[in-house]
């Protein structure tokens, strides 16, 4: 067996695995194993492996060194405050072996249970259960008619009908401004030149009169003044016109 161990270090799942096997070969409860004997056996295995010039991976050697240290610590006369305490190191190794052994046994017992597909069998071809998801569509009556209003508003041909309103034409404004401007020697606001008391016509009259004022200014017949954008617009007759 020892020869096989030496030749098949790779067959062991690491030093702890080998140690557990060696411990079990002592055929005693793991709590009563002889740690010294265990250390001797492990070191012997490693020595043989090296004698056979096998590659021995680092973790095996680390464990060997640690065990060699443990062995000497256990054999030497106890120092009162040795750090680490060799007895505790040995206990630690024993606890680890116990835990690994416990899980190894548990795994074996688990595998021995009645397992589906090996010992017990489900139906080979069950019908299966199906859940058919059905959407319960929700929309309110208001949303429906609101949508129709929205479409109608969006897509109907929009027809802009301008009501038939009285307007002052540019020609009328030119004639009117030309007639009254001669009297405007002082600066006067443009509003002073609009026809009075006709609110309906006022916006149209203002627009036309403004354009007429621009045209007369271009002809050099009036002067325009404005302090800033949107400030009141003033006009007066041009000096040349005044003398005429």
């Amino acid at each position, binding site marked *: 067996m020892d020869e096989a161990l030496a030749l098949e270090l790779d067959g062991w799942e690491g030093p702890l695995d080998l140690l557990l096997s060696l411990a079990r070969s002592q055929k005693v409860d793991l709590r009563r194993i002889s740690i010294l004997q265990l250390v001797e056996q492990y070191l012997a295995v490693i020595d043989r492996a090296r004698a056979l010039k096998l590659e021995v991976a680092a973790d095996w050697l680390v464990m060997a060194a640690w065990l060699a240290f443990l062995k000497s610590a256990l054999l030497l006369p106890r120092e009162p405050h040795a750090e680490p305490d060799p007895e505790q190191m040995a206990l630690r190794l024993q606890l680890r072996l116990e835990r690994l052994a416990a899980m190894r046994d548990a795994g074996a017992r688990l595998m021995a249970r009645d397992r589906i597909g090996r010992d017990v*069998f489900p139906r080979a071809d069950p019908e*299966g259960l199906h859940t*058919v998801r059905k959407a319960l*569509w929700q929309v309110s*009556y208001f949303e*429906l*008619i609101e949508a129709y209003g929205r479409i109608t508003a969006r897509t109907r041909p929009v*027809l802009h009908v301008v009501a038939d309103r009285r307007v002052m034409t540019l020609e009328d404004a030119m004639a009117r401004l030309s007639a009254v401007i001669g009297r405007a020697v002082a600066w006067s606001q443009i509003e002073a030149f609009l026809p009075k008391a006709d609110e309906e016509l006022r916006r149209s009259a203002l627009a036309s009169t403004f354009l007429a004022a621009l045209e007369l200014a271009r002809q050099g017949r009036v002067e325009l003044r404005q302090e800033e954008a949107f400030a009141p617009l003033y006009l007066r007759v041009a000096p040349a016109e005044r003398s005429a």
Partner: protein
Amino acid sequence: MTPPDDLVRAVEAVLFAAAEPLTADAIAAHVGAGDVRAALSRLAQDYAGRGVSVVRRGERWHMQTAADLAHLLRRDREEPRRLSRAGVETLAIIAYHEPVSRAEIEAVRGVQISKGTLDVLMEAGWVRPAGRREAPGRPLTYATTPAFLAHFGLASRRDLPGIDDLRAAGLLDPVDSALPDTGVEKDSEDA
């Protein structure tokens, strides 16, 4: 259940685990010596009236769900979902203009509709195909269903508010007040 004997139990397990109906001989190959046919008859009796039955089809036997319980294996689950904006608009157009073709719906909406939109409305049970129009391409038309009226609490489509009602309710806001009240009922057909 009365405890069955070993042969009956064995036949039961073999039938249960089988991938397909088995002949008595195939069962016997598993369970060994014994009167498999008698065991099958006993099993069929044992399962009579249960949720599972042991049935014979020709020379083969199998276990299956009791026929009257098949509906339990399928379960419908309703999940409330809001109709998309495209869905609501399409539904409204169909309701106001039915019967109406897809091209006409798109002309009214001013946007294309995806195939899924009409499918959803039909799945909801609110819209149905309403025959083909005798026009080039013979387009399929759509109309609403009685379920549509029921869902919205309408006695008939005439109960849908007219354009004037919508306007009065402020639902037509952006439209110029001088717009003559014509057109909608016709322009879809012209599209």
